[in-house]
């Protein structure tokens, strides 16, 4: 659950001062336990507060039921198989939209970051769209694309595009000029320049955008599934709220969050594979 932090490989020489040889097995197990405790500590505190506050009447239990009640509702949904249906429907939308966004925004970002004419031409248009709320565009999407899957995937796609695009552009502009000189000196051009220098050099920054987009792809479901949805976690949240099934609503929210966290973990793992060459930076 380290996601946001993508805990870096600690190289030997980066170990904190004062140790000479490898720490003993006991010490290492103890370290691991401390770390594990740290990792769950904050979450545990959150859950305890969530459980206790409504029970003590600090917040209205009707609107913020104790965590255990939400868990019950979650189990019920899970046992009834509904959770699987909702999750499946949502994931299909999220992943399609997200995949499309990666496929479009990374190449586009590379082009815009690199070719000034492309930036001049497309920049203003993209800038306007980037600053147009997906939520406000919901009716337009529905109008133009219908209320079926197309418009829902399009919204996910739309929302995921911007963080990837912006980070990719920024990554390209941040490539070490020395490496560009090298690439130019061997007359790399066009596609191969991107493939062999700009893309690998950009990977870390692009991935930050991709991970932001990964979260967005799940988050935007709540909006995307407001209209014409038959299933989905966003739909579950909306409908539960509408029907005053508060514990279910929270069960839906929690599931969305959990999926978001897992998805992010996967992206972090992928990122690590691609950036294993990076020199570890540590305190």
């Amino acid at each position, binding site marked *: 659950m380290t996601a946001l932090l993508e805990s870096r490989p600690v190289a030997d020489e980066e170990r904190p001062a004062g140790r000479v040889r490898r720490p003993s097995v006991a010490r290492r197990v103890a370290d691991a336990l401390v770390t594990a405790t740290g990792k769950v500590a904050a979450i545990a505190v959150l859950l305890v507060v969530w459980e206790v506050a409504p029970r003590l009447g600090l917040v209205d239990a009707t609107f913020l039921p104790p965590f255990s009640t939400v868990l019950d509702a979650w189990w019920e949904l899970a046992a009834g198989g509904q959770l699987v249906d909702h999750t499946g429907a949502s994931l299909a939308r999220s992943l399609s939209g997200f995949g499309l966004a990666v496929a479009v925004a990374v190449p586009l970002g590379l082009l815009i970051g690199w070719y000034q004419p492309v930036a001049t031409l497309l920049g203003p248009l993209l800038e306007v769209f980037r600053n147009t709320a997906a939520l406000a565009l919901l009716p337009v999407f529905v109008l133009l694309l219908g209320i079926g899957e197309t418009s829902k995937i399009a919204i996910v796609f739309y929302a995921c595009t911007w963080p990837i695009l912006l980070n990719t552009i920024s990554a390209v502009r941040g490539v070490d000029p020395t490496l560009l000189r090298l690439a130019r000196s061997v007359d790399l051009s066009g596609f191969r320049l991107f493939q062999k220098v700009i893309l690998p050099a950009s990977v870390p920054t692009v991935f930050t955008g991709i991970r932001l987009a990964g979260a967005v792809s799940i988050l935007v479901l709540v909006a995307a599934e407001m209209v014409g949805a038959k299933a989905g976690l966003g739909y579950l949240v909306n409908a539960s709220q509408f029907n005053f099934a*508060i514990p279910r609503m929270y069960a839906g929210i929690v599931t969305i969050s959990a999926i978001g966290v897992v998805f992010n973990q996967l992206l972090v793992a992928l990122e690590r594979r691609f950036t294993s060459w990076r020199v570890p930076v540590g305190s």
Partner: protein
Amino acid sequence: GGAETRTLRYQGWAGDVTLPELAADLGYLGDVTLEWVGNTTSGPQDIQSAATGQVDFGGAFNGAVVKLKAAGARIRSVIGYYGSDEAAFSGFYVPEDSPITSARDLIGKKVGMNTLGAHHEAMLGIYLKRNGLSPDEIKKVEPIAVPPVNIEQSVRQGQIEVGVLGGILRDKALEKGGLRKLFSDFDLLGAFTAGTYVFTEDFLRDNPGTVRTFVSGVAQAIEWSRTTPREEVVARKVDILTKRGRNEDPAALRYWKSNGVAGKGGRIVDQELTLWVDWLAERGEIAKDQVTLSDLYTNEFNGVAA
């Protein structure tokens, strides 16, 4: 023209069994079948989908129908499907110990409701006007949008002085006690139909037979739920909901009391729409001559009411 379509695409409401769905289950729709394309959470969105051909019919409160018509959409109401009566109404609630007891007390106060510019705001306006407040005084009453699930709690916490509650929200809030009704739409206007189903003019022209079957079937369903014991209606609805397997929770259905439809078989009367035309014109949202009443609705497809 050619053969009429016998399949009607529509949007449902999660956790609810709508009248057309009930009619279909009761066998009132004959060879007309319903095709569920998904759920919606908003009446205006539903009739917009109907107007743009995403679905074949949609329902919303009549104010929205008037506004959509005024905006230029070629739609027409064919049958009423919900409204207010003594069982189904929207109440304006204050805490039990609130000093607010009359319309005049609302000056400078906040009234929370799920959406602005809709049914509830209109009811508030009519209430204030009927109780003798001047337009300037009315402006000092502050309607405010609050998500439905937050209304009760906002009233109790004093963030708003009045909250509008209906249906399950009202029942759940009243179960807990501590709230007092200031007035309701039923108190104000008596039983009346508040929302209607609409089709596009084109659809009505091309598929009159289908529409007739549909409207008459829904009308029959209205009458069936009016004359059948409440428990039986609820049981039937729960049964439908369970059978169709859309991953819904039947809990909310048990709070059903009445459709609130006033006219027999959902018959629409002038007054139900002129109310909104007048109100919207008064607010300057539409010009009075922007809609003609005869274009707004028709009962001609309603075999039960005609």
